[in-house]
Structure formats: structure tokens, C-alpha cells
């Protein structure tokens, strides 16, 4: 029973984040929402894995927890340097994005 409540709450949270992702005035609001959806998906998968007693599936949640933020790092790189090859130590900024 509590699992259904948990899954439902996570889905409600995801839908709220999704609304922010579609409305979000700036690009960063949208990325924030994507990030939040990511964390909630980790929890959703964990809840599902425990309730269906297939704890193998926890590996998927584990991997999401590990690598979900790479996309944000890539965005930071793009905003900061405007390319993907410099290490950015020269302190030159890239083009700013609105």
C-alpha cells in the first residue's frame, strides 16, 4: 500500500518538475527540472525494484545516481568555454547563452 503512495508521490513530483521544464523562463530552469526528474527517476526505480523483489534492478538506479550529472557538467562546459576541447585554464570565457 505504502509503495503505491510512494510511487504516486514520485510521479506527482515528476509532473511538477515537468511543468517547470516546459514553462521555465530560462534555459537553466529547464535543466534544473531535468535534474530533478533524474533524481526522482532514481527513487522510482529503487521503489519499483524493492516492491517487485527484483533487487537486480537497483543497479540501474545506482548507475543513474553515478552518471546523471554528466549532462549538467557538459552544459557548464559549453556555457563557460563554448567548446569541448580546452581545459579552460587560460581564463577566457566562451559565448554566453540566454
Amino acid at each position, binding site marked *: 500500500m505504502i509503495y503505491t503512495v510512494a510511487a504516486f508521490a514520485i510521479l506527482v513530483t515528476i509532473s511538477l518538475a515537468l511543468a517547470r521544464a516546459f514553462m521555465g523562463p530560462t534555459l537553466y530552469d529547464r535543466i534544473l527540472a531535468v535534474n530533478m526528474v533524474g533524481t526522482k527517476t532514481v527513487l522510482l526505480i529503487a521503489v519499483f525494484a524493492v516492491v517487485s523483489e527484483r533487487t*537486480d*534492478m537497483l*543497479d*540501474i538506479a*545506482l*548507475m543513474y545516481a*553515478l*552518471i546523471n550529472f*554528466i549532462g549538467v*557538467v*557538459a552544459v*557548464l*562546459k559549453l556555457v*563557460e*568555454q563554448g*567548446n*569541448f*576541447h*580546452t*581545459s*579552460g*585554464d587560460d*581564463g577566457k570565457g566562451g559565448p554566453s547563452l540566454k
Partner: protein
Amino acid sequence: MKHNLLLRVIAKYLFPVIALFAFYVQFHGDFGPGGGFQAGVILSVAFIFYTLVYGLETAEQIIPPYVLRILASTGVLIYAGTGVVTMLMGGNFLDYDLLSLNPIEGQHIGILVIELGGGITVSAIMLMIFFAFAGRARS
């Protein structure tokens, strides 16, 4: 982004963990979800993360592009080579039963080896693709 202290340190500590997880996924395809394809992608993601933070030059010092090219073809060769070995042992192509005296054991070895081949190819190719995209802007 070496001057970004937080990312630099986090990349340093998280890289071995992601890489170890990739290896875990690689070798536990028999028991749980996972296998060569997923492991290859995760391993390449670990390197991509490192590249994003430390820059392409540093990453290319650690794994030079020619090593990636060799690894990518090695993976396919391991896969196809397993098939050729089973043929030389008198069976069909990719007939793992012959790899050991016990067919089950042979299957296990065969699956482990070809998953390894797949994993090496996928990770090398993904990283190669990323390096190609990232390095294109240099002139």
C-alpha cells in the same frame, strides 16, 4: 575546467568509482542486468567526464587516439576470433560448447569473452566519437 576546484576534485574521486562500476557491470552480465554494451558505455562516460573537466589534451595523454583505434579493432577481433577458435576446434562458428570439456563451462567462458570483446569495442568507439566531436574545433 581545471580551475573549477569542485569539479576537478569530484572528477578525481568519482572517476575510479564509475570505472569500477563499469567493470562490475561488464563481468556480472550473467547474474543481473548488464553486459558488454552497457559496461562499454559507462566506461566511456567515465572518461568523457574526465575529459570535460581536465580538457582534451590531458585525456589524450592518458589514452592516446591510436590506442583507442587499436582497442576498437581488438574488441571486434576478440569477438570474431572466438568464433574462429571454435571453428578450429572442430565446431561451428561461435559454438562455445567446445571451449571447455564441460559444455556449460564452455558456454560460460565463451559468453564472458565475447561480452568482453563487445565492451572493449563499444567503449573505445564511444570515446573515439566523443574525441572526434570535441577535437573538431581545434585548429
